[in-house]
Structure formats: C-alpha cells, structure tokens
C-alpha cells in the first residue's frame, strides 16, 4: 500500500515536471515619432518561457517575411552598457525593467498588468492573423492594440499584456509610439536563463515607478531652466534654443 502511494507520488511529481513550459520568441519593432527627434525605430525581442518573459533590445535583426512562423536567424546583442530590458512574471505579478534618464540607467519596479482593456468587435487581418481591436488608457496616453485569439499568449511588447491573445500591433492614438510584430517563433529553443534579471543589475537598488517618474520630471524641468538661461545669455543671437529630453511613453 505504501509502495503504491509512493508510486503515485512519483507519478504525480513526474507529471508536474512534464508540465509543458511554452517557449516562444517574439520580435517587435518600435517606431517613435516626435517633433524634436523625428522618426526613430528600434527592434526588440521578447523571450517567453511559461509565466515569465523578458524583452531585450537587439540590433541587426534580419527583416522577416509575413509567414506565420518566421524563423529568427541572426540576432546580436547590443554590446556595451547595461542591457535595456523588461522582465514580466505573470505568476508573481512582477514587472521589473530598466530605463534611462539621459545616460543614467535605472532599475525600476512596476506593477504587472495595470491595463484596463476594452475589447471591441472590430477585426482586421494583420500578417495573416485575425486580429481584434482593444483599447485602453495607460498613464496619460490612449492606446489601440490589435491582438489575435489565434495565439493564446497573454503578452505583448513593452509593458503591454493582459489580453486573451498575443498583441500583434499596438500604438497610441497619435502614433508617437507604435509597436508592430516583425517575427515569431513558437518552437523557439534558447537558454532559459536569459529570462532573468540581467546580471549587470544584480547590485543595483531598484526604484519604484513613481519615484522614477519624479526623477524624469525633475530632469525635464532642469533642462527647461537651462534652456531659458541659455537663451537669455545670447544677446541678439538665436532666441529659440530649446533643450529637452526625449518624451517618455508614460506621462506619469
């Protein structure tokens, strides 16, 4: 009897271990548009393993075709400096990321899934996926997301998540920040250790999101003050000197 119980216990443990951990690699391109900086684009790659994911910045991403499962062939990590990342943990409801003010990097603690999505009945075909429109307001901007129920993954680019399907495209209503899917590999194999806090940040104390935003706003004011002083000192010269830091995606 005891033996039988042990066998059952072992069986249960084994079956727990065989819990399918889904891995996937998703690529997005972010296009930012602003008056002072023009149009700028940046590629990101999201590694997903079960309940955790990490988004990293990459360069040299080969443009992919619109096949349903694009192969990711050649990616390189941006070397030098600390990696820019967004780490999501859906089990522990954690969101940790890095961001910068000027050249200084910060480690930031944030809350996972603050999005109150409104799912509409608008559909659109994007890259062979049947996508559904969802809208939300998040920290000062209105966003329109197109997600697909064909890929039941609760994730997306940047901090976005919490829809009943993978986000294919998402942008704010002014198209200042637009993310679009550029590649997807659902049979991806990679070193799972990549989905963790990058070692460069291990000895850095994290700041809370609201404290980080306070620092951003302080910096903004400093720059404005500096701009004014500078313009006052130039006699009869250029009167329109403005120095600013790039607009953050979040306003607060």
């Amino acid at each position, binding site marked *: 009897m005891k033996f039988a119980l042990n066998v059952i216990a072992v069986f249960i443990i084994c079956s727990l271990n065989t*819990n399918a951990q889904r891995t996937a690699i998703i690529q997005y391109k972010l296009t930012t548009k602003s008056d002072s900086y023009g149009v700028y684009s940046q590629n990101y790659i999201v590694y997903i393993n079960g309940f955790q994911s990490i988004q990293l910045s990459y360069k040299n991403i080969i443009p992919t075709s619109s096949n349903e499962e694009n192969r990711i062939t050649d990616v390189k990590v941006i070397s030098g400096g600390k990696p820019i990342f967004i780490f999501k943990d*859906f089990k522990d409801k954690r969101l940790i990321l890095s961001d910068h003010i000027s050249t200084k990097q910060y480690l930031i603690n944030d809350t996972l899934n603050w999005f109150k999505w409104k799912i509409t009945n608008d559909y659109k075909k994007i890259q062979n996926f049947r996508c559904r429109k969802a809208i939300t307001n998040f920290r000062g901007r209105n966003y329109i997301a197109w997600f697909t129920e064909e890929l039941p993954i609760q994730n997306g680019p940047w901090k976005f998540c919490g829809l009943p399907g993978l986000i294919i495209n998402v942008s704010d209503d002014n198209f200042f920040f637009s993310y679009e899917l550029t590649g997807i590999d659902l049979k991806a194999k990679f070193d799972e250790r990549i989905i963790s806090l990058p070692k460069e940040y291990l000895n850095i104390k994290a700041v809370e999101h609201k404290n980080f935003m306070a620092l951003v706003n302080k910096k903004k004011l400093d720059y404005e003050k500096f701009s004014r002083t500078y313009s006052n000192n130039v006699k009869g010269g250029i009167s329109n000197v403005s120095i600013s830091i790039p607009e953050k995606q979040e306003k607060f």
Partner: protein
Amino acid sequence: MCRYLIFLSIIFTHHLSLAQSVKLTGSVISGTDKLPSASIQLKTFGDEDILIYGFSDEEGNYKLSGKIDQSANFLLIAAYIGYKKDTFVITRNDLIKQEYSNIISR
C-alpha cells in the same frame, strides 16, 4: 502527436441574481498534462463578445469571475499554443443551475 486539447472543466457558478455575476473554476488538461497559462474565455454564443477571460495558473487551474449578459447560450473556450482549441456550449440555465447545486452542496 496528439494535438487535441482535452479540456476537463468543472464549472461552479456563483450567481448574484441581479448583477448576473458568475464564477468559473476548472482546469485545462491534455492527457495527463495540466496546461499552465492556457487561455480561457467565456463568450456570448453567436456574436463574439468576450464576457470573461483569463489564463490558467501553474497547476493548470483557473478561477475567473465576471458578469454575463442576457444571452441564452454561451461559449466556454480553452486555447493553448500548439493545441486544437476546445469549445463548450453552455446554456444560461446551466450556468445558473449549477450554481444552485453548488449552493445546495455547501
């Protein structure tokens, strides 16, 4: 490889008669594997209004709650990458009736 998602779901619904709130609990299983992070949706039958949605936890279980509309029939859908999605038709009465049996069993 068997690509069928066997979806064993026990639905206990908790009904607040006016607000029409329901609770859905169950698990998503394929063979002997419990599937974590599988998508669960309760939709209105006919159109595709999503009334309640969420994902299974690390043990493959889910516990969701939300409000239902006036429809007579609903769809309960479980989906997971690489598996055929599983769709259940549930009548409004079933959603509500099971809730009564749940209360009786207490």
